[in-house]
């Protein structure tokens, strides 16, 4: 009892923490847009979200990335107030929101299937949150106008949602969620139902709208490319847990788990036994081959995995001398991707290395013997199962 304590016990004291009086937590979390502290959600037997900790800085574009069923949408919905958590607490701009219903949280959400109101015109849809707040008619008109300009779709006020294309409907949903100037915008896979070309265009536009407004965006997606394109930071989730967090390049270049290396981008993954830990690096035995990797947090004779990005792998008839990893193999398949070529080379029975790069001239023929190689530092050493 006594002074409000942090952690799990703080749940009961959330209502008491008045605005402006931060009860506890570090300096970073007081200023952060969203703080998630040890949040857990169970559905019957399954744990959808398992003890998640997350700090989202103000004005950042952060993606929650993970395969379907990893708990990312559940976490987003708990922040929005649509699900209640079974443990932990959530702060938005320093204020606990655990007891607040969705309509009293300073966040708005863009839904996957737009969720526009079909019985209202576009104007009435966007004006809806303003009307509920008792904003004057004149002010409403002005703000709806501004929102439509923000999403680059002016002049559609009188249309019905059913008369809009998918891309337009999603812009209107975005305008409606932003018109009330929320502290944080939550986006639940908003581009999923759009076709590829439109999706790419909207990714860039969402990002520039976010930069223009400076509003914090928390964006849920299962598309790693989308997350890499748009985000300041990526929060990678798997099986209800946050497994890694960082800037896109960091996540891509330094995955900390087999899952992370696999989920983000294409990769070659070799599993084997650590045979030597030397000053220069680690050696991992994969089948009958020795793979060189940098020094890592492993000891001899444990199992580990080595991940190599296909674009780090060199391929050709002659040896590249400064590459520590050099293997002879047979070109099984060559796939032309337009801007790139992908080669599949079998270097040991059942062990295939994928390489990717600009087209070679003349094209290598399938079935030829050749060499694949990569630098030791391009190997990423991963503890087998964290």
């Amino acid at each position: 009892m006594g002074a409000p304590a942090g952690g799990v016990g703080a749940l009961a004291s959330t209502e008491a923490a008045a605005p402006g009086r931060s009860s506890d937590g570090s300096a970073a979390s007081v200023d952060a847009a969203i703080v998630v502290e040890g949040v857990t959600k169970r559905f019957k037997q399954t744990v959808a979200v398992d003890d998640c900790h997350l700090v989202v800085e103000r004005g950042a574009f952060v993606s929650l990335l993970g395969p379907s069923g990893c708990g990312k949408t559940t976490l987003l919905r708990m922040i929005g107030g649509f699900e209640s958590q079974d443990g932990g607490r959530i702060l938005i701009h320093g204020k606990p929101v655990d007891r607040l219903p969705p309509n009293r949280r300073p966040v708005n959400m863009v839904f996957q299937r737009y969720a526009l109101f079909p019985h209202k015109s576009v104007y009435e849809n966007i004006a809806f949150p303003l009307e509920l707040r008792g904003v004057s008619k004149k002010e409403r008109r002005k703000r709806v106008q501004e929102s439509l300009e923000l999403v680059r779709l002016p002049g559609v006020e009188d249309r019905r949602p059913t008369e809009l294309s998918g891309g337009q409907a999603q812009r209107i949903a975005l305008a409606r969620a932003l018109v009330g100037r929320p502290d944080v915008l939550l986006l639940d896979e908003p581009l999923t139902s759009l076709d590829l070309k439109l999706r790419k265009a909207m990714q860039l536009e969402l990002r520039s709208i976010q930069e223009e407004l400076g509003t914090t965006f928390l964006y849920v997606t299962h598309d790693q490319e989308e997350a890499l394109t748009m985000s300041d930071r990526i929060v990678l989730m798997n099986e209800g847990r946050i497994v890694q967090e960082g800037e896109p390049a960091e996540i891509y270049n330094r995955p900390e788990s087999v899952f992370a290396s696999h989920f983000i981008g294409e990769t070659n993954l070799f599993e084997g036994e650590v045979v030597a830990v030397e000053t220069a690096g680690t050696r991992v035995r994969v089948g009958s081959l020795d793979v060189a990797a940098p020094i890592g947090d492993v000891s001899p004779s444990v199992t580990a995995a080595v991940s190599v990005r296909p674009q780090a792998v060199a391929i050709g008839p002659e040896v590249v001398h400064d590459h520590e990893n050099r293997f002879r193999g047979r070109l099984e398949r060559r796939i032309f991707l337009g801007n790139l070529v992908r080669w599949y080379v079998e270097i040991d029975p059942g062990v295939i290395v994928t390489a990717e790069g600009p087209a070679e001239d003349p094209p290598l023929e399938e079935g030829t013997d050749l060499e694949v190689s990569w630098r030791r530092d391009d190997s990423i050493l991963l503890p087998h199962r964290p």
Partner: protein
Amino acid sequence: MAIRAAPTSEQLDLSARVAMLFRTREERERWLSLAQLTPAMAFLLVFLVGPLAVFLIYSFWVTRSYQLISDWNIENYREALTQGVYRDLFRNTIEIAIVAAAITTSLAYTYAHLIRFQLRRFQNVLLFVAIVALFSGYLVRIYAWRTILGDEGIMNRALLSLGLVDKPLSFLLYSRAAALIVLVNFLVPLAILPIYAALQNVSDDQIDAARDLGAGAFQAFRKVTLPLAWNGVFVAFSFTFIIAAGDYVTPQLVGGTSGAMIGRAIADKFGVTFAWPLGAALSFLTLAFVLAILSVIRFASRRVLR
């Protein structure tokens, strides 16, 4: 602009020739949907509009010595509107039908809302339970209610044995309340189905969005759920209102004097006194009142539910 060469007639099969009759695709589709409507339209024309038209004509005629005479006048309407007995019956009918429809629609809405949003896991079972009520005959149910509400019925027996009353309460049966109970009991399952169907079209996301944008639970209901489901609710109300207003069995068997309705009088005009023109006039007035009330509700709800 691309200009296609017109195909010669040998190249065209029958369907292509038919297609040529209509200049545009839209035109063709419009005709096709009209063609699809034809059987139902024909049926309604022959068996509903036709007889109605005949009775509309009768309502301006007279009967003399049990003969229909085409002596055009509006006496029947004047009589129907001025005679106290009909005025009372009309008032009773409208009051009972509106109250019955309102109670029915509210109960049905509550039920449909619960199975759509709260008891989703049991929705098939609960929907089936609602429909099962329709399997038993209408008359059977009226008599069942008589055994519940009558002097020797379950209610009075219970009240007597508990010592709450010393003689049976006769007003339980043969009263407006009894008529309402029986009507509501009969109509609720009919009203559940259209409302449930309409609520199926309201997505969880839309309700979440309303909450997210600042609406409290009631505001979300009032501004999103109800307007989106309103067509179904209105259909349910119209349906039950029309059935209640036209019913003449329930008022006769359980209604008593305070529960007497116009349907009974109309049936008598046709079946007993052979006053067809007056009966027809009473029918059309009932129809006019019903349509007028439904139009007012429709119009008012359009302005309120936005």
